[in-house]
């Protein structure tokens, strides 16, 4: 590892909030991978024998059901863990798509600043940013006959790159005028070569930070969609849908809503802390 990344890593772990964010994200990933394996309960099957009280209400947290059961008497812990897999998959995949698209559009527009290509791309971004995000995503979701994790991540990814493109364009324009880029051009290096060897490595840091914070936004967006009934169809568990299911039972079975609510809060907090830590760690002014 060269000196600069090592220094950035050192700076990252020196921040307690960043380390906490990394720990939370690590825990979430572990929970998503291991949770369903250790719970011992099927994710979609109701337990009308042990998961229900004498009053026909869900049972609270106990040794059998660690986080209690939901309104259909299914294990909340298992559903939360499977929901974590789905939420994280959608968030990571949508972020990856949005980052690639946003990075590509931003670099091209920034490099070709002032040209027709730049004007067209940026007006496209302006129109996209002016459109209410949630309305757009819900309209797309409603237009699809059946929503799956793939359609949700495509919907979020294809609508979530606009802000990234704008930031990366500005960064590209800034780097393009720096001496080493001017020198590379003077020496006759090809445009693709300059973009690959000089521009991309220099926008990678901001791109990583944006992507990390974007993961949190994608988790929230997916939860909102599911909460509003435009997400993945049941019985597949999603945190947003679990939250919706639990709200009517808040007075007698608060764990149904609190568990996904806390999971959403924790994951958004974790990715935000991680993103902020990364931003400070890769900030060149700190070198």
């Amino acid at each position: 590892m060269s000196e600069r990344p090592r220094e950035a890593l050192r700076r990252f772990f020196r921040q307690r909030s960043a380390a906490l964010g990394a720990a939370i994200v690590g825990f979430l990933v572990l929970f998503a991978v291991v949770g369903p394996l250790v719970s011992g309960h099927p994710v979609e099957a109701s337990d009308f024998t042990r998961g229900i009280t004498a009053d026909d209400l869900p049972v609270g947290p106990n040794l059998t059901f660690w986080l209690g059961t939901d309104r259909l008497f299914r294990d909340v812990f298992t559903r939360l863990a499977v929901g974590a897999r789905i939420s994280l998959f959608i968030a990571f995949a949508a972020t990856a798509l949005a980052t690639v698209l946003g990075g590509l559009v931003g670099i091209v527009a920034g490099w070709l600043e002032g040209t027709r290509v730049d004007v067209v791309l940026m007006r496209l971004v302006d129109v996209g940013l002016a459109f209410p995000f949630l309305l757009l995503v819900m309209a797309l979701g409603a237009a699809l006959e059946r929503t799956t994790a793939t359609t949700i991540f495509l919907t979020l990814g294809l609508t979530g790159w606009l802000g990234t493109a704008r930031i990366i364009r500005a960064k590209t324009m800034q780097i393009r005028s720096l001496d080493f880029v001017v020198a590379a051009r003077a020496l006759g290096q090809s445009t693709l070569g300059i973009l690959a060897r000089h521009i991309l490595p220099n926008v990678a840091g901001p791109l990583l930070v944006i992507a990390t914070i974007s993961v949190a936004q994608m988790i929230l967006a997916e939860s909102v969609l599911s909460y509003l009934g435009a997400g993945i169809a049941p019985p597949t568990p999603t945190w947003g849908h679990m939250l919706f299911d639990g709200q009517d039972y808040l007075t007698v079975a608060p764990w149904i809503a609190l568990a996904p609510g806390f999971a959403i809060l924790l994951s958004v907090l974790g990715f935000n802390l991680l993103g902020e830590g990364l931003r400070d760690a890769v900030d060149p002014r700190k070198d």
Partner: protein
Amino acid sequence: MRSILGRTSALVLLAGLVACGREVPAPIPRAGGEGAPPARGGTLELASFADIRALDPANMADGLVPQMLEAMFAGLVDYDHEGHVVPDLAERWTVEDEGKTFRFFLREGARFHDGAEVTAEDVKRSVERALHPSAPNPYASYFESLSGFAEFAAKKTERLAGVEVEGRYVVRFRLDQPDAVFLPVLAMPMVRPTCKSAGDRYTDTWVACGAGPFKLAPNGWDRGRELRLVRHDGYYQRGKPLLDGVRWTFHVNSTSQRFKLTRGELDVMREFLAPDLVAFQTDPRWRPFGAYEANKQVNGESMNCELPPFDNVEVRRAVAAAIDREQLRKIRATNLVVQTRPVPPDVPGFDPEVPAQTFDLPRALEHMKNAGLAYDPATGKGGWPHPIPYLVYKQGLTEATAQVLAQQLAKIGLRLEIRIVNYPTFMAIRNRRRQSPMAPGFWQQDFPDALSFLEPLWTTRSINDEDSNNTSFYSNPRYDALVDKARREPSEERRRRLTTEAQKILVDEAPWAFTYGYRWYVQAQPYVREHTAHPVWGIELSKIWIDRAGGRMASRALFGHDARTTFASVFGDRPR
């Protein structure tokens, strides 16, 4: 870190609210004792999550409306507490010509809200107005046995020949053939007499005016917000109603209704969340003033008999036997009751001798085998090879029951793929021919008789390419003949035998797998007197009177201003 602290505090506050929410405050007591004489006055406060789009007997489009129309429009006949047809504006009637002629004798001196007397001419005009094809009346076909109905509905004539005025207070209805349910249908609100201001034909700008116990207050219908009715002092039943008025507020969710009830701002409530209902039912202070309404609704799984695999009767029988209805009931045990037959138990015509559709997994697997779709639960092999799209509407009870149903049908080799759409889309797709293989079916009685279910839901003539009431597209000539014969049969006993035979066919051929009925629980305040559930209207507003200790403002003294303000700040409601 500050944000973490803030969010943790929010969680603690939420937990505190949760803890508070378990308690049901004491109700506001009544002023008088058990034998207190009825007193006039007061406005009954009601609320609903739903709204209404029209307030006209000729356009009864929403579930809430019949109750309101019953309060505003008196009919020739009405239903009593057992669901029997009794005189209303008509003080008596005669049946002649082997059940093909009904002659009604109106009460003299009965007045509309505008002060005009109710006459036979008004009856004829109102019937023609409601049944004319220009009126958006979804129930007009219930009157097809009236002489001249077909010509009138086809706009070939301007007057309905089957309704004749024989004097100022006598009106005659002539039928082409005997119709055993003509009187129960007539007691429904849609052809009830309307004021002359309604005119001869339907318009959606008319201000509702009838001869019922309550009339619309000036500017009393604030669309989307509330409906206010006031007492009709010219009502023919002297001394009734006792209430000064009734106010319905719309778009009030269950949680808000619950808190309004405990604060004394709502007098009767029925739209409970299940956990709240448990709290009220188990509280001895509230329990004596709550009761279930009659079970007049059937729910089931409607299987499209024109689409595979449900075009095979053995698959439908397998589904009917594979559903553990007790499990479905437990999803909302406070309101659901297991239902295994086409006609709900509280509806006249229910027959316990009709064999029930019951849960029997081995038998279900046997039916699958008979259908050529043998399924081995041990290996998971066999069954129907394709996923079956199962349509439900967004965030309703069926979204929950669908998930348990999918678990149950997977045990016989039928894999449901739940598709959630909004309610209008759900209705459009489910009710369109050859579109949806399986979807929830539900129906509530229009009039208290078995034919209110058997005729619209499963007869061949109820099949339409669009907007079909027969959502399973089931067609069986023998069944059709039994239902038609029952409709013409004047003898109660013989008609019962016919409807029983028809029900046996449905249970066996299973166009629907019957699952549960939904019982509304109505919680009244102790001070709401003479409140008993009516089998058709739910609430009988003309009898109710209010006997509240300290009047409407009593809630302030009981709950204290600070507590009310705190509630308001948390739940966003403005204290009065």
